[in-house]
């Protein structure tokens, strides 16, 4: 053992070198992670602006062939917004309530263990299997919307969304300090009111973020929609009747066409999809900020 030095001398050279080296590695890792992201955004913006015009947002592809100029994604934007909205309306309450059960009521009981297990399994379901399930169950067995239906697409998306919402909400509810539950119980507040007025508001910003991630994830799903909404070129605002379009399937359809006009439309649709997800994210952040717990 060396004698401990009492002087406050300068940092040794080897430590300085190590510090610099690790700092360099951290920056390098950051750059490596960001480069593909920036490149992706840049490429989409560069190609997407070609058809980012009024016609694109106001016209469908009805009667427009791949080699024709013009046409637009109006029908696809309508379809995506409706399908994702319905999917959210189904899966957010279901997911949040399941998470509330798991954290506040189940308490590692047998039932909550079983639910947790199936949520884990559901998280791993390949998206096309969700589409096949709805195709087989809803459209073929129950015979609803056999010609394709926006709502069937929403159901397939819900299957993918629910486990994500459950997991995100569960983690956020677990982060709510037990002190707050006890404080509320000690005031003679029943458990359900404690959950509604103390626990959920405290966890709200986190839950919103989780829900947004789930929305962003399903908004880009293509496979389950291909099997359920039966891609159309025409505008269909009714998700409960007849085939609908959606942005991912529109992109898939147009990008598969060798004509430049179609490829331009695919890029613009990709840009629109990214912008919609960004707008949703922004909105969720604003809402979360409005409810953010302050102080401390």
């Amino acid at each position, binding site marked *: 053992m060396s004698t401990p030095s009492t002087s406050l001398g300068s940092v040794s050279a080897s430590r300085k070198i190590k510090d610099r080296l690790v700092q360099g590695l951290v920056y390098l890792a950051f750059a490596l992670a960001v480069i593909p992201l920036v490149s992706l955004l840049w490429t989409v913006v560069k190609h997407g602006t070609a058809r980012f015009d009024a016609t694109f947002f106001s016209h469908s592809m009805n009667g427009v062939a791949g080699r024709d100029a013009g046409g637009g994604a109006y029908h696809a934007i309508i379809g995506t917004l409706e399908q994702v909205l319905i999917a959210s309306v189904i899966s957010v309450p279901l997911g949040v309530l399941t998470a509330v059960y798991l954290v506040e009521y189940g308490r590692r009981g047998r039932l909550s263990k079983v639910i947790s297990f199936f949520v884990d399994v559901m998280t791993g379901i390949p998206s096309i299997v969700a589409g096949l399930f709805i195709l087989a169950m809803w459209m073929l067995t129950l015979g609803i919307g056999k010609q394709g239906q926006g709502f069937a697409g929403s159901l397939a998306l819900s299957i993918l969304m629910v486990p994500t919402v459950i997991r995100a909400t569960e983690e956020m509810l677990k982060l709510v300090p037990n002190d707050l539950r*006890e404080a509320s119980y*000690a005031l003679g507040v029943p458990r359900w009111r404690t959950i509604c007025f*103390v626990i959920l508001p405290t966890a709200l910003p986190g839950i919103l973020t989780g829900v947004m991630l789930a929305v962003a994830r399903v908004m880009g799903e293509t496979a389950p929609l291909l099997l359920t909404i039966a891609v159309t070129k025409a505008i269909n605002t009714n998700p409960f009747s007849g085939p609908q379009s959606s942005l991912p399937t529109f992109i898939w359809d147009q990008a598969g066409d060798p004509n430049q006009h179609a490829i331009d439309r695919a890029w613009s649709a990709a840009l629109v999809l990214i912008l919609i997800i960004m707008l949703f994210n922004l909105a969720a952040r604003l809402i979360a900020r409005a409810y953010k717990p302050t102080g401390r």
Partner: protein
Amino acid sequence: MAKRIEVSGLHAYYGGTHAIEDISMTVEPRSVTAFIGPSGCGKSTFLRTLNRMHEVIPGARVEGKVMLDDDDLYAPSVDPVAVRRTVGMVFQRPNPFPTMSIYDNVAAGLKLNGVRRKSQLDDIVEDSLKGANLWEEVKDRLGKPGAGLSGGQQQRLCIARAIAVQPQVLLMDEPCSALDPISTLAIEDLIAKLKNQYTIVIVTHNMQQAARVSDRTAFFNIAGTGRPGKLIEIDDTSKIFTNPEQKATEDYITGRFG
């Protein structure tokens, strides 16, 4: 507004662990009773059995009888939620609701139990904050978040929140252990004032505090690790601190052990 608590033959368990054993005592109304004793001797557990907060913990259960005047708190027909409205509680760490303003924190117990009239709420919030000696400090910022106050103010806010539902009894679980001496003094003054209206039970690790604020003191002890905590003796505070009956009590308060 204050009620007498009579406990007889009370045992509490956490799952298979026997936490406190055979406790019987009487807590007089409009007085302060302090619980002292080494860590892990079951003071807090016993306190939490007095408003049925013990059973909030999974696997926890209670045997024995707790009478609040003529009502048995553990009778099968009794709703624990109603018990907690009658027997309020202040915790060791200040725990204001982080999403709520100062006003809403104090009004929380009433609002969450269905009181909606604004004028009535305003009056109760003002009275409770005055009762907790906090009104002068916060009257101009009732809309600001409760979590933005200092630790001592937060604890007084929690006391205001507890008395806003007008309980009969106020239980305090080491209310000053996270506070500085000035804030502690403020809380102790408050306890002296509140005892005119409420039955107060306070758990404390600070024996000077027990001597300062309480009328009666109960000493709890534990025979060894894994053994249940027991009530050694309860008597007037002056007697406990000068001439206790039990050797263990004397050893503890004179610092010979613990």
